[in-house]
């Protein structure tokens, strides 16, 4: 069933990206005009605003414990705990035109991942390096979890100030402390449900 849903969903996603940018407004925070800053080493002592700090919240869902649910519109990622609760993390999400929704699974996990910006990203941002070794100045941060066979990941960041904003190319970014926390809680194969505001 899951396989089938992915099969039908992926071409739709691909088509959407090829033909027209998906446009959606934001309620929370306006788009932050900030590019990737490879090489910048983040100040990890800076605390997130309270609402984006990791916390246990009430969350009712039919998805089983261990499932990740991302509410793009809210800039929150929920890790379902069962018994009506979830751990909530603040995330940064894709900027307008780079948001998406669907069901994927984590296919790979990596610590201090290397960064090879995909060709479509290089095309848009030619100034980006073609390759960057993993480390504190790497835009993927301390950990990365790869989603299906897409170019999307849940990863750390070297720009903690972007949490809560729509700035990425469709990836979900978290501060390094949070991505390390999440990384240790979820195995390869974890179901990731991404939701966005419905289009009118």
């Amino acid at each position, binding site marked *: 069933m899951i396989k089938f849903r992915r099969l039908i969903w992926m071409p739709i996603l691909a088509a959407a990206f090829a033909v027209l940018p998906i446009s959606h407004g934001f309620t*929370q925070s306006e788009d932050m005009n900030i590019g990737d800053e490879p090489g910048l080493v983040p100040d990890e002592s800076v605390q997130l605003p309270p609402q984006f700090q990791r916390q*246990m919240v009430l969350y009712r869902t039919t998805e089983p414990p261990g499932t990740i649910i991302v*509410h793009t519109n*809210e800039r929150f990622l929920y890790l379902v705990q069962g018994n009506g609760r979830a751990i909530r993390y603040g995330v940064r999400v894709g900027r307008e035109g780079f948001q998406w929704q669907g069901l994927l699974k984590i296919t790979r996990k990596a610590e201090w991942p290397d960064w090879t910006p995909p060709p479509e990203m290089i095309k848009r941002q030619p100034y980006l390096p073609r390759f960057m070794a993993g480390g504190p100045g790497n835009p993927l941060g301390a950990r990365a979890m790869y989603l299906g066979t897409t170019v999307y990941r849940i990863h750390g960041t070297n720009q903690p100030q972007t949490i809560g904003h729509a700035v990425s190319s469709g990836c979900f970014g978290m501060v390094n402390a949070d991505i390390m926390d999440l990384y240790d809680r979820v195995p390869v194969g974890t179901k990731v449900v991404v939701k966005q505001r419905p289009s009118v």
Partner: protein
Amino acid sequence: MRNAALSFARTALACVAALGVTGAASAQTLKAVKDRGVLNCGVSTGLPGFSNPDDKGVWSGIDVDLCRAVAAAVFNDAGKVKYVPLNAEDRFKALQSGTIDVLSRNSTWTMSRESEFNVAFTGVNYYDGQGFMVRKALKKDSALDLDNSKVCVQSGTTTQLNLGDYFRTNNMKYQEMAFPDAAATLKAYDSGQCDVFTSDVSQLYAERLGLSAPNDHVILPDVISKEPLGPAVKQGDSQWLEIVKWAHFAMLNAEELGVTSKNVDEALKSTKPDVKRLVGTEGAYGEQIGLTKDWAARIIRLVGNYGESYERNVGTGSKLGIPRGLNHLWSEGGIQYAPPIR
């Protein structure tokens, strides 16, 4: 038998007709509000996030937004509201006497309030309930983890009774530290006399701001009692009840359908049937309750959808920063649910 059924049907019809006349005769509130040119809205004397005046006397809050929504639907102007601050004792009397048209004052919907005060609650715009605050350093993330703690609670309240029930039911021991007023209870907790502080969740978030180190405390996700807060109207004017009720439902449906104050004009061009019914480009749902076709579009444009109102007043856009929790839409992790517009 057939004749009997027929005559019963005739009687029933006559009754319906009579009711119809009565209904029309009592449908006075909308007319009175329109003639007056302003909606009289009963609010609190000042509760941040719910109904609170700023230093210029401008009211804001999730309860204030409900009144703004009704004014938007009726006048196409969310500012045509006169706020009447009321204490807890006077609030329902003000509805009965007609001093206010709607009460939107963080009031819990209970059976006896409807029957004794002759009022009708129109919905639940904030699901509150009792919760717990603890020090972060204790590393607790569940109320079931609070065995053998010292709990600060205000005495003589339902909160105190719920606390006892909850611990007893879950076979947990606790030591109660009860204080006569809210301020003393909080102070005792802040000074370290207790491990746990209990009150309604919305209160916990507000009270945490007053602690000496707010960031050192967490509010547990558990909600152990039902405190459904909502607006109320006087019984007897079913049209007015519908208007206030559907103003709230319109905001919820708007969030569910992705219609916001920013994209409402785009929504007016939508081809989706449920969006069209909401914004009034299909059907005449507003007209059936004495409003215009675009009643909900007015609300969404001038006030926003429920999520926008929540985040602005009590959520991520406010000092309180209360997670949506129970007040998420039913499809997003909570229990906020509006019947469809069709």
